[in-house]
């Protein structure tokens, strides 16, 4: 990490609050993710992890507080604007184009990266650079042989890989993954971890994850979110040794 990125975190939340009516889901939250860091958010159900992701990615606007991406304020921007500012996210519930081919699913994002979002006057088949780039992402997520199949026909873990692939296509350098290994077998999880490790090299990763083994093997730091507040942010080892965290969260699992 260069000195410059230390000064300016990739993602910074300061005093972020989100309430739905009288219910405060996130309470005055502060969080800094350094550029190039792999960071996990853990916490019990209902702690506000999904809301946190939805705020950062633009589904909701924060009620108060500041969110900045590479030093640029993004709080309250539309999802497409945040994406163009350099942040991409995946979804906990697979969120793909079911009736398009796997290749087409990825190409939509690649087109956005190369700025041909609304091209109307040239056939897509002639866009060599875009098709090559799509092939590259297809290979990265291990779906080369499935390129022509409909995304809806993929197996669950293949769809999860596609989900990650789509998140990569727009070329964002900050990646948000929402429970990328949820519902996977141990073997599939191990494969997914390797995939995430490989594709996030040189990028900043923020992920929601329940599986502690995934967090330990993948992440530099962990934040524990409980009832809308961050209880602790530390290395995985530090967090698991933290007494308050054990009581609030890990303790439940150990018991």
């Amino acid at each position, binding site marked *: 990490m260069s000195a410059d990125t230390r000064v300016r975190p990739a993602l910074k939340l300061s005093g972020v609050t989100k309430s739905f009516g009288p219910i405060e889901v996130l309470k005055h939250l502060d969080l800094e993710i350094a550029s190039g860091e792999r960071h996990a958010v853990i916490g019990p159900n209902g702690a506000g992890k999904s809301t946190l992701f939805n705020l950062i*990615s633009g589904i909701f606007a924060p009620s108060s507080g500041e969110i900045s991406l590479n030093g640029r304020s993004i709080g309250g921007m*539309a*999802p*497409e604007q945040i*994406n*163009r500012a350099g942040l*991409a*996210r995946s*979804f906990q519930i697979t*969120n*793909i*184009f*079911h*009736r*398009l081919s796997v290749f*087409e699913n990825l*190409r*939509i*994002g690649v*087109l*956005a*990266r190369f700025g*041909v*979002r*609304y*091209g*109307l*006057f*040239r*056939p*897509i*088949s002639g*866009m060599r650079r875009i098709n090559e780039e799509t092939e590259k992402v297809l290979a990265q997520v291990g*779906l080369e*042989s*499935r390129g022509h*199949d409909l995304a809806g026909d*993929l*197996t669950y873990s*293949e769809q999860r890989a596609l989900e990650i692939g*789509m998140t990569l*296509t*727009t070329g964002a350098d900050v990646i948000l993954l929402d429970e990328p290994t949820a519902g996977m077998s141990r073997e599939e999880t191990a494969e997914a971890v390797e995939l995430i490790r490989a594709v996030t090299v040189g990028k900043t990763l923020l992920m929601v994850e329940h599986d502690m083994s995934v967090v330990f093997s993948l992440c530099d730091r962990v934040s524990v979110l409980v009832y809308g507040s961050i209880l602790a942010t530390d290395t995985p080892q530090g967090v698991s040794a933290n007494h308050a965290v054990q009581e609030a969260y890990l303790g439940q699992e150990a018991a």
Partner: protein
Amino acid sequence: MMSFRSVLLLATLLALLLAVPPLLDLAWQNALVNVLIASLFALAFNLLVGQAGLLSFGHAAYFGVGAFAALHLMIAIEDGLAFPTPLVPLAGAVVGLVVGLVAGFFATKRSGVYFALVTLAIAELIHALAPRLEGLFGGESGIGSMRMPFAGIVFGSTIEVYYLTLGWVLFCGLGLYLYTLTPFGRLTLALRDNEQRVRFLGYDAHSSKVIVFAISGMVSGVAGSLLAISNETANYSLFATDVSAQVVLQTFVGGSTVFFGPVIGAAIFALFSFLVSDLTRSWVFYQGLIFVLVMLYAPTGIGGAIQHHIRHRRQLDWPALAAPYAAMLFGGLLVAAGIVFATEMVAVMFGEDYARTREAAGGALIPFELFGATWSPTGPSTYLIPLVLLGAGIAILVKVRRRIDAVWAARGEQGSKTQTLATTGGIQ
């Protein structure tokens, strides 16, 4: 990309469209003009419903403004404006595009049912306003104009109008097809599947939908212009709900999931109204019935069913299918005969003419004429014939369906085998 075979098919179709019409009589030439216009309108409509997943119930609005725009331009040409008559549909394109942009901006702020309702409301708004705006739409009687000659072409005969229409329909149809091959065409499909994800990939979903809507409006406007050129007149009834409904029915009967599907539906319905509307007043009922039956038994439409067969042509045991398919056709004809008999009988017995003759006969249930025979309203054969036709037809269909399903299931086993191989290949 298109296979050699489909190119050959299209070339044959094009040759027929070019060569056959001069040999036909005026009524048929005119019917073909209407088929072409309906086809283009349905293709434009399907850009929205089939590709973008936006079901509009008010497409008459864009078709209608296109027609009026063309007529106003034709009136100006009559008054001496130097504008080539063959390019009159450009007026419909421009006005369709502009009205589509404005209406689309509001309609696409919502999706699903709300989108459909907004489009319906916009069309109804224009329908209600049009008769009051005398200057624009000519009041209740509408406006009219003459086709002016251009470059030695008089545009006096129907065949000239036919070729002009054919040219525009092919041009716009090709344009819509090429559209599907562009990045924006692919984005349109992505919007249909998952609008939210499109936004998270950095696209402005609303603007994209407005553009799709406007393009659909533009081509609908061209179709409306072609109708105006053919009829040389238009009135506010072009904005009526049944114009909007017609294109919905045609598109879904033809198949919204296949690019050329809507053309099949449009051709069938336009020819059906040409052939049947003179024979019976119940033709609208038959049209509705066709729609309901297609939606129930072939939800992807005729085009979808054809595509399904083409996709599986190599795995299907065609000789085993031939007999059941023939039997299905026969059963279908029996059912159709039964329905037509019953419908026409009801139409006669509850019609005004029959009521009058009964009154003259002192209220007695007197016999009536139908299909060149005399039927007694109290005679058993009057009711037994349609019942037997329907019963026999349905029995055949039910039985034959099982056999057809069995043949398709045998294909399914082979199909799933290749599927499994592909899947294992994917994991390795």
